[in-house]
């Protein structure tokens, strides 16, 4: 386990920024404790300082997963975000939607086709009455 280098941190933040925008600093700088990112076997984990101190005393071979896995670095050093990060990203997400077409279809389809469904809950129309057309 080791901290991320500057290049790795940049890659991770860029990816996170696509989903939660400017709110990454809310992940980095939390009022309820010091949380940090650590790298273990090419996977990026998000864990609190208390957990970090405990995990530091586990042998490397026996350590499976310290904290929550946000994603991993591939062989060519690209960062792939994982679904296990959803719990942390959901509160700050820029929006949610359901894919209407599969990835391959999305590429072939014409510009005006629908690709994402935004599934609203019951009260959304009432909540966003003013902004919705």
């Amino acid at each position, binding site marked *: 386990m*080791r901290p991320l280098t500057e290049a790795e*941190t940049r890659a991770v933040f860029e990816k996170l920024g696509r989903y939660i925008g400017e709110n990454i600093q809310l992940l980095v700088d939390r009022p309820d404790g010091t949380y940090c990112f650590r790298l273990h076997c090419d996977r990026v984990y998000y864990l609190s300082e208390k957990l970090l101190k405990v995990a530091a005393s586990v042998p490397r071979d026996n350590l499976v997963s310290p904290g929550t896995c946000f994603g991993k670095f591939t062989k060519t050093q690209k960062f792939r975000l994982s679904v296990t990060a959803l719990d942390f990203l959901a509160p700050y997400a820029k929006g949610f939607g359901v894919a209407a077409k599969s990835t391959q279809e999305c590429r072939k389809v014409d510009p005006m086709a629908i690709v994402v469904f935004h599934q609203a809950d019951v009260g959304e129309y009432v909540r966003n009455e003013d902004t919705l057309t």
Partner: protein
Amino acid sequence: MAAVRVEEVLAAAEEQEAEKRRSVTVEKELELEFDLGNLLALDRNPPAAVELRGAGPRREALLRALARDNTQLLVARLWELPAERAGGAGGPLVARLPEPAFRLPREKPPPRPRPPTRWEQFARLKGIRRRKRTSLVWDEQAKEWRRRWGYRRAGGDPARAWLAEVPEGADPEEDQFARLRREKRERVARNELNRLRNLARAHRAGTAVPAAPLHPTGHQSREELGHVARVARVSTASLGRFQPRLPKEPVEPPSRSGGRKRRFEPLLGNLAAERSRQLELLRDMSSKKPVLDITRAVNKQLRQEEAEAAAAKGKKQSQRGKRGRRQQGAGGVSGGLGGPVPPSFAGTDR
């Protein structure tokens, strides 16, 4: 019928004999030179040059015949050597070869002359020359010539010396025999130490890498300058430990693995500092403004200026050359390009 037959048979036998003799005798214009000690035969007869030209079966056949003939002559000479039976009566016949006359060249390079030892340097400085000592010394007690050292030496057998006087000013309780033995041991040890030191010095002198010095003209590559700076830094009495750093020199000491191992921040390092660093990184990323790196901008500007200056100089030289050529006309010798034209410009000139 029978008579003809007999004649035929005799003729055939005669031919066979001639054939055998032909295979053993070889005719040569010039005699070969032999060095039987090296099993060497030198043939100075000029070969048929026409036949040897161009690869082909004719050439191969000629070469093979040549080799066969020369080998035949060599073997014939070998058989003329005095021979004897090795290993008793039933053993093989062995020829006694003479001393080799032909000197073969060295296989390995000759040994380098070793550097002079400390004593040799001192002796050369003082002009001390080596005096040859006689190997035999006159022993007064035994009244005969004895060796200088070794078996039955001149000064009597040191193992049987029964008296060791206490010298003036020495401790009377001290064991003189022990002292003599100890001093001899120390002398031997010191001698051995000096011998090994001389050996080490000679070995080091042989494998020393000449340090690339600073060029007086100033045309030096960046790597060379960096290397020389690093060497100069460590060339102090305390090996550079208390040397103040130059303004732009990196802080970390040169790693022993030579840059092969990566170094990371400690796992439980200063978390507050890590947080602040990450926040700053986020701020830079979100600022949407290209960060100005002063050093890179300045270097880029300098390089651009240098390129322009070089281009202008090249243009001037080529113009001067062209004018010179035109003035001299068909004389032949032209001014040409006055100096080296930078490659970047040569293409654009045409």
